[in-house]
């Protein structure tokens, strides 16, 4: 099996790749990890990972700047049904549009998760934005990538570093939230696609367990 981790000039790619390599190694899975911007490799991959650090508009531009890359992701994920994992801005790109550093029309995303990417607005004015640090997860509905991972107040923590999140329109797309002055979207999923607002590649035990689950997931 091959996993394509999309390289589109966004930061933090190295960390994501290393975390996937570690998970593959620890689970003893026969999987090859490709860090790539080659549309041929992406369109043929068995699983697709879209990492991302940065501003939505800038990441989208980076992705669109590589000829054929976006189409190859759609070919793999939409036409062939390859499982997709988004991370942070990679997850936000799954939404209908992003409202960060843009006019009121927003920047279009993949429209896999219906909803806009909007700024988080804690109801407690002493809470800081960006949300930076470790928080726990509240599961809204079960998803195989969370199998066996302790969640809730006494569960494992995930590492967040973000000012925006997807305001999901379809209830069934929301898998987990965290709390930062109100619920904040933490995990979304639709069909063969899943995405985390937090960084599994930086979330130690919880992150490696999720990545391993994703690699075994058969949607």
């Amino acid at each position, binding site marked *: 099996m091959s996993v394509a981790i999309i390289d589109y*000039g966004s*930061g*933090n*790619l*190295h*960390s994501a790749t*290393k*975390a996937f390599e*570690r998970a593959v190694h620890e689970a003893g899975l026969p999987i090859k990890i490709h860090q790539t911007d080659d549309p041929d490799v992406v369109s043929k991959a068995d699983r697709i990972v879209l990492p991302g*650090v*940065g*501003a939505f508009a*800038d990441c989208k531009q980076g992705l669109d700047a590589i000829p054929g890359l976006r189409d190859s992701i759609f070919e793999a994920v939409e036409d062939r049904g390859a499982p997709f994992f988004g991370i942070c*801005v990679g997850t936000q790109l799954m939404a209908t549009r992003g409202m*960060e*550093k843009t006019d009121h029309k927003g920047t279009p995303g993949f429209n896999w998760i219906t909803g806009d990417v909007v700024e988080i607005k804690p109801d407690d004015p002493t*809470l*800081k*934005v*960006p*949300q*930076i*640090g*470790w*928080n*726990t997860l*509240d599961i809204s509905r079960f998803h195989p990538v969370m199998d066996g991972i302790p969640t*809730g*107040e006494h569960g*494992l*923590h995930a*590492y*967040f*570093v*973000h*000012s925006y999140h997807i305001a999901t329109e379809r209830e069934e797309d929301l898998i987990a939230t*965290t*709390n*930062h002055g109100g619920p904040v979207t933490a995990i979304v999923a639709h069909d063969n696609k899943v995405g985390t607002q937090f*960084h599994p*590649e*930086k*979330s*130690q*035990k*919880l*992150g*490696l367990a999720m990545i391993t689950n994703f690699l075994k997931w058969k949607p």
Partner: protein
Amino acid sequence: MTLKVRIIPCLDVSNGRVVKGVNFVDLVDAGDPVQAAIAYDAAGADELTFLDITASSDGRAATFDMIARTAEQCFMPLTVGGGVREISDIRKLLLAGADKVSINTTAVNNPNFVAEAADKFGNQCIVVAIDAKKVSAEGEEDRWEIFTHGGRTETGIDAVEFAQTVVAKGAGEILLTSMDRDGTKIGYNLPLTRAVADAVSVPVIASGGVGNLDHLVEGITKGHASAVLAASIFHFGTYSILEAKRHMHKAGIPVRLDP
């Protein structure tokens, strides 16, 4: 369920090596930042900060290699600061494996650089490091100013106003070091920390002066910081990360105590 207060050990590095000593038991090579990072990762540190004090470009290359090696083995967040002058410096650090980049002198010289960096990489990964010193006389209302070049160069810029300026430009976090307290072990400068933390909407990391675990607690309860940074109390094994977390937990501060 709430966001936890972060405990952040900080390592000074130069040419890819730790410069202020680290004195853990069981470290194969105490000068290797990767070894230290692995130890802190295992100990449950919430983030790690590397402060690169390298002056030469050869040394810089060693730093990128150090970050890459750390990111290969530690699945925890890394902030790297020191010598960031260009947008390309930030991209290189992020590609090597840094999650956040801390900007100091360049932000003071050109606050618009912060805006440019935040537009490119998002506010959340741009930390502005502020080194401040008290300039008000005894009996006067407290006033702190920014110093650059390791505290040697006076700028005449008010620390609280500067923090507000860089946040308006897009800084996602402030790393606030009290130059008066650094290395003293008498605790954070709490009035400074509180003044800045209350003046900005983004998280403030308190730094400079920690000598015991109560100082960490005060940084949060009295300084209103979102995270506490310390170097020597952890490097020399005076306290472990877990001891620090348990102490803060007992004081009623939410911390991450994952197994």
